[in-house]
């Protein structure tokens, strides 16, 4: 079962905690919003990602199990 991180762009308020806690996956754009590598997380990264998700003040960072990505 592979996991990946995703951002809810509506909830995200650019606090930037995720980039501090998961720099291997997340960098910030010029406005402070996360640029996320959404490819499957490797081994211990899952744990780090979950920690980053818990630290997000608006709960905008999601650690998801692989599912069909759908956009409206």
């Amino acid at each position, binding site marked *: 079962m592979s996991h990946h991180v995703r951002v809810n762009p509506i909830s995200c308020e650019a606090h930037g905690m995720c980039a501090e806690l998961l720099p291997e996956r997340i960098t910030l754009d*010029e406005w402070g919003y996360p640029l996320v590598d959404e490819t499957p997380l490797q081994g211990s990264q899952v744990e780090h990602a979950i920690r980053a998700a818990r630290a997000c003040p608006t709960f905008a960072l999601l650690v998801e199990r692989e599912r069909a990505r759908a956009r409206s």
Partner: protein
Amino acid sequence: MTPASSTFSDTAPLAAAQPAAALPRLLAGIPPHGAMTLEEHLAIHDPPPLLRGHGKKHDRQRGAALIDEIERSGLLGRGGAAFPTATKMRAVAGARGRAIVVVNGAEGEPASLKDRTLLETLPHLVLDGAILAAHAVGGEEVIVCVCESAGAGFEGIAQAIEERRSDPACVAFERSAKVHLTRVPGHYVAGQESALVNHLGGGPALPTFTPPMPFEQGVRRRPTLVSNVETLAHVSLIARHGAPWFRQLGTPSQPGSALVTLSGPVGHPGVYEIEHGASLVSLIDAAGGTTARPRGVLVGGYAGAWIGGERLRGVALSNEHLAPHGASLGAGVVLLLSEQACPVAETARVARWLAGQSAHQCGPCVHGLDALATTIEEIAGGIAQARVEQRIEQLARLVRRRGACNHPDGAVNLILSALDTFQTEFADHARHGPCDGCTRRPELPLPLAPVSSEAVER
């Protein structure tokens, strides 16, 4: 393969000949003023087939048969995304809970008039399709959403709903299905599926984070089929005449006819029904030809793409033909820009409007579209920074696929396409500043009043 008419039509007179496959289909018998009455509608189109009233098991089979027929017809959604209608219907039919059908008449595209035209003049065609779709996906409830700026469209459909209530045949056709009518705000993103569902649930008409998609969990958490007005009108004709009939027009990958809204310097701008794959030239000819030399044509609206005037002759109106131009038909907007207009000033104006139409929910859309609009304005004013092309590419990368809805992506597409199509003009402005055309009256239509925050927040 059995044609639909013999699969589930008990009411249609058997002897009725298949209508001519040619055009017009949707627009057949369109009245010059006001709405087509129920009587006129039934004289032109025959009654729609009954899906309900044959016992639970048979009703279900008939519903499934209609979805199969729509799948064979190859009908693609006409709201802009060209998603296969049968796939959506099947997903809703298969989801748990009583389904709801939402008729999407939000039509936020400033240059599009086709949906309000259908609602205003041919409301029974839309209602037939909506009821058939509701029955097919196992629903009892239809919610017709009309853009608040479509005054006559609202009147037309409201009258038609009333008219059907007092007609015994219609009551029998609709069975227990209930049709509600509601207005939706006119801003650009209000027609996004999740925004409509959000609005109908009592929230603001703004997109939400998906999944869940509306087909899984939509209005009142029920599986919800959100379908464009024109799409449902086609459903009602496919149910009557079958998939083979539908496919007699159009291309194999995009069958059938389509409504397009043609505007700009042509003799008679307006809504036309074309066969997919028809040449742009034939459409312009049908509209009385051009009244000024076109500098370019915008296909697909403000999420669409430009095609330069010199390539106009070779353009055919289907997605496969438009793909090499980087365009798609979208919701059927075809907009000519005259030679006198300045494409740089026009793009700057539309880019600023698109930035303002952001729902202001997602950071990259809010900041990115604003920065893009500013950059284009700077080019138009001849005060662009050094390496402006790289800056635009960078902003495009920062905006694309980073919103909850497709608005930022559509805006970026339009801006990049304008830069590509009107390279010379942009380079000229960057170097020398405004041209003579910059001060002309703008040609590209935008809503007169900016969307008030009140409309968004309701």
